[in-house]
């Protein structure tokens, strides 16, 4: 069991699968910039190196991966601060 799954089962609203999927999106984005590190679930994504343009790519990639459109009102810095925060948004929209 991965660290992300263990964490998710303990403390996050999002499912472990969702968190892993979001983490993979972020990891692929960072890999394109030769960063081979997967950010921690609670790490600030801007601190991890994502720029304004990256955030657009991230939101669109999450929408595509989960087949949903995130309402404009939910596209806030707090909701996209970390993988865990995004997971909570996705979980809320799936319910």
């Amino acid at each position, binding site marked *: 069991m991965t660290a992300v799954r263990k964490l998710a089962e303990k403390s996050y609203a999002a499912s472990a699968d969702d968190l892993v999927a979001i983490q993979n999106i972020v990891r692929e984005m960072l890999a*394109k910039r030769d960063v081979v590190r997967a950010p921690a679930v609670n790490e600030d994504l*801007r601190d991890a190196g*994502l*720029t*304004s*343009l*990256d*955030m*657009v*790519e991230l*939101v*669109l990639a999450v929408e595509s991966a989960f087949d949903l459109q995130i309402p*404009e009102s939910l*596209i*806030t*810095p707090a909701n*996209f601060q970390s993988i865990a925060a995004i997971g909570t948004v996705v979980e809320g929209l799936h319910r």
Partner: protein
Amino acid sequence: MLMRAEAKPALDPDVRRLLRMLSLGGVSDPSTLTPRQMRQRFAAWAQTVDVRNAPIGRIENFVTPGPAGPVPVRLYAPEGATGPLPGFVYIHGGGCIFGDLETHDGLCRVLSHESGAIVLAIDYRCAPEHPYPAALEDCTAVVDWFAQHANELGIAPDALGIAGDSAGAGLAVTICRMAREGGPRLSLQLLFSPVLDLRADTPSRREFAVGYFLTQATIDWMLQHICATGIMPDDARLSPLRAGDFSGLPPAHVHTAAFDPLRDEGAIYVERLRGAGVPVDHTCHAGMIHHFYGMGGAVPNALDAVKHAARAAGAALRNEDRRAA
């Protein structure tokens, strides 16, 4: 930044969503970016928001002669097209610093497919590695080559247009001005959000300086790199609005965006052309921002706008062809 975007209900809803996503990263400061970094970012942006794999009949990559060596170009031909077709040379935007054939591939596909025209996109030399006017010289050479080889490319020689966006549209205008002195006959200038005055001090430059994708900070960054080698921003080749004579220019289709800092200089150009007796179709696209024509994948209304613009431009060149015959 965000509040200002929200106070403008006329922004297209998908554009507003994109601006909100951009704002998630905080206010970006381009001043420390190198040209290489800006190129990477713009390429990533285009991959993220532009239309992908739009239908096209045929694509060919080759080189044409240029003043400093071969210039890479990409030819787009519409599906099933026969007989002499209209043709466009396409000059991409990016401040003559970034952008390339890939960043404008979606736009050029749509332009060719919807207009029924051959499109030849130019991968011209960019500053600061190749100081201005290298970009202008490459594009001029390709336009000449395109006109000289129209017949073998299946293009009606009297249906040759020049198209571009942003700084590329500014280059297109300068080439039209230069072509009046014995250059190739150009029958249409198709311009998306042209850069026409590097020192413009218009209401749109002030109103949309922050928070609408193309920021004044980015414009300043481009100026710094373009003018690093001594060319002045009010040089008429870079700022064609500062030139005097607009008569004898090709008919124009000018597309500006309602929330673009460059909106007003486009409108001023339209006025100058009309004043000089040049026929102009001008559309200021409601709800749109700079580079909307490259956001077709994320903004359906932007894609529709480009399709409509392409059809109108193709029709204009066909009419021109008939008149000439």
